[in-house]
């Protein structure tokens, strides 16, 4: 599935990537990535240096491991519960195969990575969702790992950073995936009631059951520029209301305007901003 796209002849100029593609001499020898927003082709080496942000500001989708690399102090990340894998509890059609292919293609066991780390010198617990594993959809393992992360952080008196990217609840686990919304929310609430900080960083896209639970429950809610943040996807809304949607509907910038996000933070500043926020919430008498 999807492979045919690579072998298919482009139908038109747009599919080829548009005319007049900018191409410096040095790029000829290197793999490049084409920006879906401005069509500019950036060489891999430049992209890595720029944390996968195009010169137009478009944030490329990146894996959870890549995020850990630039969000945490070097060598400080310690992963927790890395062995947990989903099971096909409901005998849902095609789910075991889907899980297997996702494990192979993403090289992850599930759609969230949890652990502890230091950011700008402050200790924290963190969970980072994985877009390359079923688009970060939340099943029982994702819900369980995030719940454990909050319970662990409550016990250890640690702040939590959550980086979200998700298509929502995982249909293949039916009603049990819906229950994860309540379960995680309960753990967030208990963590917060102990006077502990929870920061969320919403990345593209954060939707559905994840928006309607722990993504929107942060004390401080940050978002990556241009990220889509919504409960219901734009296509479904368009079909329902049969109206043209306003420009930039459900973009982080619009959500900021409507009062649902505290700050939009470019990728290059996220480590700094989060480090500073953690520092400002350090508990009196506590180290790290």
């Amino acid at each position, binding site marked *: 599935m999807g492979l045919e796209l690579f072998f298919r002849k482009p139908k038109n100029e747009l599919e080829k990537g548009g005319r007049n593609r900018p191409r410096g001499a040095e790029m000829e020898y290197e793999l490049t990535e084409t920006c879906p927003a401005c069509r500019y082709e950036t060489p891999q080496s430049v992209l890595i240096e720029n944390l996968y942000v195009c010169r137009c500001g478009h944030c490329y989708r990146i894996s959870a491991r890549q995020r850990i690399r630039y969000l945490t102090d070097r060598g400080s990340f310690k992963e927790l519960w890395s062995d947990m894998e989903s099971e096909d*509890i409901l005998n849902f059609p095609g789910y075991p195969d889907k899980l297997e292919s996702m494990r192979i293609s993403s090289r992850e066991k599930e759609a969230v990575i949890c652990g502890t780390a230091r950011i700008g010198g402050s200790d924290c617990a963190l969970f980072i969702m994985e877009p390359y594993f079923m688009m970060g959809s939340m099943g029982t*393992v994702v819900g369980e790992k995030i719940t454990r992360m909050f319970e662990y952080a409550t016990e250890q008196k640690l702040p939590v950073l959550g980086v979200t990217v998700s298509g929502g609840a995982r249909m293949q686990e039916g*009603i049990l995936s819906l229950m994860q*919304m309540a*379960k995680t929310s*309960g753990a967030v609430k208990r963590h917060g009631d102990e006077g502990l900080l929870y920061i969320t960083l919403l990345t593209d896209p954060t939707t559905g*059951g994840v928006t*309607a639970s722990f993504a929107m429950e942060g004390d401080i809610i940050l978002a990556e520029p241009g990220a889509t943040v919504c409960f219901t996807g734009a296509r479904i*809304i368009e079909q329902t209301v049969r109206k043209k949607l*306003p420009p930039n509907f459900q973009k982080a910038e619009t959500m900021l305007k409507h009062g649902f996000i505290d700050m939009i933070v470019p990728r290059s500043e996220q480590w700094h901003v989060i480090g500073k926020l953690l520092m400002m919430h350090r508990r009196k008498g506590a180290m790290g």
Partner: protein
Amino acid sequence: MKSAYEIVTAARSKDRQTGQNFINGIFKDFMELHGDRRFADDPAIVGGLAMLDGVAYTVIATEKGRDTKSRISRNFGTPHPEGYRKALRLMKQAEKFNRPVVCFVDTSGAYCGIGAEERGQGQAIAENLMEMMALRTPVLSILVGEGGSGGALALSVANEVWMLENAIYSVISPESCSNILWRTTERAAEAAESLKLTAADVFELGVIDRIVSERGGDAQRMFSALARDIAEWYRKMQSKSAEELTEARYARFRRFGAGPFERQGAGT
């Protein structure tokens, strides 16, 4: 035995009792309270005070409407964020005055619209989940028709969750599920089977505590049986402290999906 999709059809039937009927059929002296104190009064959610067996309850129900006109004015029982905020306001009020809360849930889901998104549908649901979990008063939710995903869950973080025999509870509608799986809505019946959304299936998974008999469609008999059961439920809850109630509620939801991993011995 009915197929899953026959139950889906029954749960959506226009002849089914709606939220307000449950309130008026079970409780006495219902007094409706309006508004979320922030933006508006959402007609898709009805809430207020009512008496049962000498006890004042806070009752909340999604309301689909009974004829074309009222269905339109009730937005077909699909709440906006202000509906969830009104419900939460009434639940907080119940907490303040130490009243039990009973919710009757029948919604295809939270409304998908421009205003709903702009006013934070996701945030409103998230806040209900978080706050209901910590509510220091007994909460009972009864799924009486459609239990449509997050929009239904936002009124169902309760100490006990009951479900009528022909109600459904699902993370996605069978039509959307079929569309995602097979790119057609025509296999919704198959999708309904796979989703395990009937009361019997959901009970089997441990997600609900009780299946409520519809008494062969005799609404009056169902209401009087429910009145008895709710009063009995409250007598059971009455003796519990606020800590016991919130602890039990947390534990109730904490167990979902934790099983298999314990067997593998993973984690700390």
